[in-house]
């Protein structure tokens, strides 16, 4: 007596074939390694050409090591600098920051009235809806790109 494979067995075999096929695909096209430093909520404000602009980003470090953001480059400004607004008894002033430490597992959120990227001498006007390319350079040599959206608030 010849035994026919049951429906259940065929189902299991089918699933196995699918899993193997997917595994083969995965082997051929390995996914991008997860970026250990994530940039989120990048935004900027409208500003006229030749004036000073600003960008705010949130940096999340999912790596096991600390990272130091040391430099920002943007094609919309002559140069970009890391600054922090400090407020003392109603007086506001800006402190240049040589770098920004993002400890492993930590998130640093730049915000108005705090840490920010100053875009010195804008080479083009920024209007609501525009994008500002940012290249973030870290002390370990890695570079992360981000696009900041220009919005009013």
């Amino acid at each position, binding site marked *: 007596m010849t035994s026919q494979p049951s429906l259940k067995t065929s189902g299991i075999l089918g699933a196995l074939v699918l899993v193997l096929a997917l595994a083969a695909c995965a082997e051929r096209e390995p996914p991008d390694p997860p970026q250990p430093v994530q940039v989120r909520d990048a935004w900027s*404000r409208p500003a006229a050409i030749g004036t000073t602009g*600003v960008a705010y980003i949130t940096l999340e470090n999912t790596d096991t090591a600390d990272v130091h953001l040391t430099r920002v480059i943007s094609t919309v400004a002559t140069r970009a600098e890391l600054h922090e607004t400090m407020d003392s008894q109603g*007086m*506001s002033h800006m402190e240049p920051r040589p770098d920004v430490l993002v400890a492993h597992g930590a998130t640093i959120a730049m915000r*108005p009235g705090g840490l920010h990227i100053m875009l*010195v001498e804008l080479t083009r006007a920024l209007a609501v809806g525009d994008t500002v390319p940012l290249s973030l350079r870290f002390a370990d040599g890695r570079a992360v790109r981000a696009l900041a959206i220009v919005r*009013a608030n």
Partner: protein
Amino acid sequence: MRRIRRRTTALVSLALLAMGCEGGPLRGVAYDPPKPLPVFEFTRANGAALSTKPAKDDLMVFFFGYTHCPDVCPTTLSDWKRVKARLGSDSARVQFVFVTVDPERDTPEVAQQYASQFDPSFIGVSGDSATTAQIQQAFGVASIRDAGAVDSAASAEYLVSHSSQSFVVDGEGRLVSMYSFGSGWDALLDDLRRML
């Protein structure tokens, strides 16, 4: 009967609460009594004169900053834009005035362009150094140029530390309230609504 009494009590409580809100303290820092100010006159970029005393029953909101300021100044003027939008038609009775503390770089044209990029109705003015010093003193505002805070090789580039509050002046030319940076645009909005 009990339900009616309960409803009446609730209505009275609501009315009292509303009255309390109406007569309660401002959300900003109030000048008590309001501080009379000298009247200053600026020549605007278009040649018109701007008096710092509002028309009777109108209000003026002042901020002292500079156009190379990337963070606090644009944040404040963006907040003003929100305030103005929410005031609706009442905004016609409020003038928002940006006064530069950096008249060397900010000409009247530059100051006006800067203010206008946030809202066409916003006024930007730049006075001579004596007027700038006097109006700052009248408002209790300070500013100081930070040497070498930006690339020290470029002498034309410098940052300025400055007071970061917004001020409201009433129709009698008196300083009535002050709003610290970060105190929230809605505080200014609520108080302007009450004062108008």
